[in-house]
């Protein structure tokens, strides 16, 4: 009887972890795809938003604008399809750390109210405020969660320090 209960509990746990993984993957992937969509459509406006952050030399801004939007789209698609999830989760976390740093530096300089460039490039949308910072921190937490739940298979729970489980 005990063995059956344990089996049922293990199966439930397996299902729960699997569904949590799928939900987090789809959620984060969709957020990144949504964020990339408008930037891919209007690279010129996204480049102007990057100029306003005043953190990069002018000569590199066009390339960064094109690359960042493509990177967001590709990691979004990969995560939804379940391709190289750990590597993509690492990249997503890195991207979020860069975005958060940008927003913090801009807000600290007193550039509040300029365009955030987080999800839209429209001149009317998304002023850069402390709320956009919290929104980015929440997404970063999601990226870390994605990475953690994809590392926590049965073996990694037993021996999380092993390099092959990272």
């Amino acid at each position, binding site marked *: 009887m005990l063995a059956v209960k344990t089996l049922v509990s293990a199966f439930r746990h397996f299902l729960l972890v699997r569904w949590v993984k799928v939900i987090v993957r789809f959620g984060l992937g969709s957020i990144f795809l949504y964020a990339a969509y408008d930037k*891919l459509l*209007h*690279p*010129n*406006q*996204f*480049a*102007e938003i*990057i*100029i306003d952050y005043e953190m990069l030399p*002018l*000569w590199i*801004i*066009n*390339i960064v*604008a*094109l*690359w*960042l*939007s*493509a*990177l967001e*789209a*590709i*990691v979004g698609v*990969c995560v939804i399809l379940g391709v*190289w999830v*750990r*590597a*993509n989760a*690492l*990249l997503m976390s890195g991207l979020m750390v860069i975005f958060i740093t940008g927003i913090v530096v801009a807000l600290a300089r007193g550039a509040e109210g300029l365009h955030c460039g987080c999800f839209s490039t429209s*001149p*009317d949308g998304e002023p850069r405020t402390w709320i956009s910072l919290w929104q980015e921190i929440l997404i970063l937490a999601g990226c870390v969660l994605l*990475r953690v739940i994809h590392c926590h298979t049965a073996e990694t729970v037993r021996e999380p*320090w092993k*390099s*092959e489980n*990272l």
Partner: protein
Amino acid sequence: MEELEDVREPLETNCVGFGYRLVIAILKNARRLVIIVFVSLLFGLGFNIYHPLGLPLTLSEVQRPGIPVWIWKRLRFVDAMEAYTTLQANREVILIDVRDRKDYEKSHPKGALSFPYRGFDRSFPEFSVRVPSDRVVLLLCYGTDCALSPRVGSRLVQRGYTNVAVIKKGFEAWEKADLPVEGSGKE
């Protein structure tokens, strides 16, 4: 004191552990990370070739980022003296100062109208009523690194203005050439 040290030790170990784990994770995924970054760069640059708003990848001395290739082909650049001569020769030419209002009020080229970049979308309907789209429009901003006048120029070209020119090095060059200015002079 001993209690404090007892508390600190595991915290420090955790921090070192996190850093170590992060470095190992990056190293272990390095090949995949490089592939994703490289593919996204190729995708971004390839997409740009066929994009109607494609951006130039290299910028000339007068070009600024965020302005599509097709607009650069329609924007002209003139130096301050040439702009002044054009203004004197033709009264139909309009000189627009795109700097912030307070800088405009302090000092601006004589006869220039204020049309700050920050309020472009709000002010454009009135501007379009007063200025026909075939009129010669000269744009001026702060100086060498100022990207505002090409940005306003880009928006005007996108809205159908056919004769837009940007003054190279902006107000800095205007003052340097000793051309007439007016304004309150107050900070």
